[in-house]
Structure formats: structure tokens, C-alpha cells
């Protein structure tokens, strides 16, 4: 189910922990799996359980507890807009509204072309550069309507590394 590359990554994570603590590699295994598969289906989670030799229930527990796992398909780019207090005090509601209007979706929804999922999330720890959002591995800070439009244009241009 997983590529050799992903399996090698999981093996490297597994090696960080004592021999009898395979479960410690679970969060990393789920992340690596999600990066390849797009989201964590039941079948994928059972595969991860077998891979680490742990019960499937332990995989479901972790996958449903942590916010970075997607249990349903999401858009190619997930726009995670921080709405916690420092961002809120600096206009995060306007950021969310701007993106919602530009994309024609409400927070929590995915555009019809499958390109974008818009989400409001809690504090991402970049409070001094509010308002901000995260897309994939990258933070975008001190957002303005202009920088948001530029970001959407770049993401639509198809580059995964838009920095």
C-alpha cells in the first residue's frame, strides 16, 4: 500500500524508540501515510496497525484524537487560518471571510475542483506575525488581502512549493 520511500521513512522513525515501543512510531507513521495517501481511510489505518504490529483500535484512537490527521478526503491545498486571540485581534475574521469569498466555500468546505479546503484552526504559534495561515509545510504571516490573492494565484499555478 505504501511506497518504498514512505516505508523507509517509517523505519527510520521506528528506530528512534526502544525495541518494545513500536507504538511510539505511530504518529509519525500516520503522518507519512497521510502524506502519500491524502487521507486516512479505515483500510489505511488497519494497514498501519499491521505495519507496526499494534491493534487497530490504537491507531483509530490516535487518528481521531489529533487535529492534523484527515479521516476524509480534503483539497490538494488545505488553507488553515489561525483564529486564536492574537490573530483575531489583528483581523483573522477578515482573512477567513476574504478567502471564503474568493473560493466560494465556507470554512470546513472544499472547492468543487478539489483544489482548496478552507479551515479555521486554533493557535499555530506565530502570534507576533498575525494574522497568519498554514498551507502544507509553510506558514504565511502578516497577511493582507493582496498577499492572500497572490498566494491563491501561486497555489492555482500548481506549484507545491509556493514559498
Amino acid at each position, binding site marked *: 500500500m505504501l511506497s518504498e520511500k514512505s516505508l523507509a521513512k517509517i523505519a527510520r522513525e521506528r528506530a*528512534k524508540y*526502544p525495541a518494545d*515501543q*513500536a*507504538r*511510539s*512510531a*505511530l*504518529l*509519525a507513521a*500516520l*503522518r507519512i501515510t497521510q502524506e502519500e495517501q491524502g487521507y486516512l481511510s479505515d483500510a489505511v489505518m488497519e494497514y498501519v496497525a499491521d505495519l507496526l504490529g*499494534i491493534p487497530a483500535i*490504537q491507531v483509530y*484512537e*490516535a487518528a481521531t*484524537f*489529533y*487535529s*492534523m*490527521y484527515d479521516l476524509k478526503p480534503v483539497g490538494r491545498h488545505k488553507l488553515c487560518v489561525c*483564529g*486564536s*486571540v*492574537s490573530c*483575531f*485581534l*489583528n*483581523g483573522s*475574521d*477578515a482573512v477567513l471571510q476574504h478567502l471564503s469569498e474568493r473560493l466560494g466555500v465556507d470554512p470546513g468546505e472544499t472547492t468543487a475542483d478539489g483544489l482548496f479546503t478552507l479551515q479555521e484552526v*486554533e*493557535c*499555530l*504559534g*506565530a*502570534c*507576533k*506575525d*498575525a494574522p497568519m495561515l*498554514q498551507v502544507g*509545510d*509553510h*506558514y504565511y504571516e502578516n497577511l493582507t488581502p493582496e498577499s492572500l490573492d497572490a498566494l491563491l494565484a501561486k497555489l492555482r499555478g500548481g506549484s507545491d512549493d509556493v514559498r
Partner: protein
Amino acid sequence: MFVNGVTLQNRGLPDSHRLSVYAGTGGYGALRKVLLDPMAPDQIISEIKKSALRGRGGAGFPTGLKWSFMPKGVTGTKYLLCNADEGEPGTCKDRDIMRYEPHRLIEGMIIGAYAMGASAGYIFIRGEFVEPIHIVEAALEEAYAKGYLGQNILGTDFSFDLYVYRGAGAYICGEETALMEALEGKKGQPRFKPPFPASYGLYGRPTTINNVETFASVPDIITRGGDWFLKLGKPNNGGTKIFSVTGQVQKPGNYEVPMGLPFRDLLAMAGGLRPGRQLKAVIPGGTSTAMVAGAAMMEVTMDYDSISKAGSALGAGSVIIMDDSVCIVKTVERIARFYMHESCGQCTPCREGMGWLWRVMHRLENGQGREEDLQLLLDVGSRIEGRTICALADGGVAPVVSSIRLFREEYEYHIQHKRCLISMGVA
């Protein structure tokens, strides 16, 4: 004024995250001193005690004392963990230490591991911090290549392995025992204490855990002495501290200043308020600490004891500034949403109570408040506080209760007029 700071002193240098740059400013000199000079583990711990370094993650527990709790003479692995799960709203300092000074953190951990006899360690970084994760991982590789990590460090019989662990999105993992659960691959739900981590921590082994900024303070304490660090600050509040000043200031940022700096000076460093604005309220230590009225805050100095006297807490040093354009009810509603979202669900008063607080705050904000709602919020709050395993719920109650105490008339206006006293200029 002590300008350069301690934990972020190299921030202004190009490539400050590289080992060569860190070494060029004396980096890893403290490690050489303790291993080659050498310094006995007890000497290190007494130097940390002398410095009055207190935990920079929020609780402010004396670091040297914590280190002395680690049992001696046990067989098997002892662990050293770094809490880099920075997630308290308003807090963004550990991210910058990891981006600009990863080796200072790593050196502090190696010295701590030597002092406590730990042979393995993990830096638990929140999963969203991908850039800092890559920087710290690269720094670990550099440190291994130089022989500062791994077997027989600097040719001694001391060995220590250090790894990055990536979180997966949960504020509660900043609670130390929830972090250990997450590291074991479980849901991040806090454990009952006692037993404390020093006797039963990761995998049930003796474990010590400190915040990023705490570890990053250690190398200079060893090099320059505990007295030097203590004198940077004030008694019982040693050293410098990074304050993340955010919200409605002209130059939000991380300011590393001596403990005991007057708040008004910190505010001035952050560019002051926006033109024509008055200071309304400050949350001095992150959203889990009580709100302080602006006028009272102007008399406070930035240290554990002074902020505690003002009825709040220094917390993680996350100073959230609100000016007179802010609706307190709307702001506290937003803060309450955070705690509802982040409650791990283990303790009933928190799981139910955080949602209850938010729902009442939400109806107040949306013109559906009832006369009895303020008393209801206070009652619910008093039935949550002290009745949960960890401090998350108390942290969720603090902003609600403190803001009602300070700005009751604003809440009452919402109830009586079904709308806000202040039309917020931030939306």
C-alpha cells in the same frame, strides 16, 4: 540595559542556526567545560539552582530543584525531554529559539542529560512547526557529526542520544504527562500525579522535561555562572526572559529582556499602542492567565512575583495587548472557543465545562444573553476549577472570570442592549 539577551543572543547573525556560527560565539564551550574540566553533576545542578532559573514553559518551577529530583543510582534508561509543543495562544518564542538558536537548545539538553544521568532524549515539537522541525533535525545531525551527541561524547564515557518527535496537533500535549502519552503513541491525555515524571515518566522510566527556553538558558549559566544569570534579573526571578508581545501594538515581536523590566518599557519596545489608542487590558502570560486592567498593568514589572501580585501569572511570557477598540466579550468568547476545542475530554468538568462556558459567551456576544448569565459563568467556573487532572480547565476559566470582574459593565451592556458597547475595528 542588557541588550543581547541569552537565549536569542545570536538571532541577528546570518545563519545563526548553523553549528559553525554557534561555535564561533563560544557555543559548545559549556559542554566542553562540564565534560573535560570536568564539573560534577551535583556542581551543575547547584549552579542552576543558584541562577534562580525557573521553568519557562508557564509553570515557573525552579529548574535546579526539578533536576535534583531525578533519582540517582538507578539501572536502566533515564530520559530527558524537551517540551517544544508551543501552543498557548499568544506564545511564539520557542519557535524562534528553534529557528535561530537550535544548538543552544541542544547544548543545554546535553548538559542536562549529563547532570541527571539521562542516556536518551526527545525534543517534542508540535507537528505544525515544520520549518523549526527541519532546522532542529539538521542541527542534531551537525551535533552528531561533531561528536557532541552519541556514544562517548568528547571522548568521555558519557553517551546521550537525542531525537526529534513530531506532534500531530493537540494543545494538551504541552502538558508534560500528556506529552509523554503522545510520545508513547497514545492519545495525549494527562496522567494523574503522583507519580511524578522523575519517578515514572516516559515508558515508566525516570524522566525530566523542560521547556525550550529553559534548556537554552543553561549553556550561559554554566559558562558565566549562576550568579551572573541571577543578577541579570532580580532575586527569585533570575535571568532574562523572552516576552512575546502580540495583539494591538505597533511592533509585535519576541523581546528578550531582564526579568523585572517595567511593563511600560516592554510596551514601548514593542512600538507602543496604535495612534490615538488607550491601553484597555493585558493578558500577561498567555490566555490561560487572568486578564489585567491596562492601568494596573502599567504599574507592574515583568517577573513572576510582580505579575502574581497583580492577580495574574507570568506564564510563558505571552503578553497580549488589547486597546480600547476591543470588545472584551467578543475577545473572551474567542478565547473560550480555544479551550472547548482543546479539552482532551478526559475529565468531565473540563469536557463539559469548556463547552458550557463557550456557549454562554457565544450567546452573550450574539445578543441572546440573559440576566442570570454572568452569575452562571462564575458558578460554572467555580465548579470546574481544581476539579480536573491538569491545568487546562483552570486556564480556560481564568480569562472568563477575570474579564467579568474587570469589565462587568461591558458584559451587562451586551445583555441589556443585545449588542456590543464597542464596535470592534478589527473585523
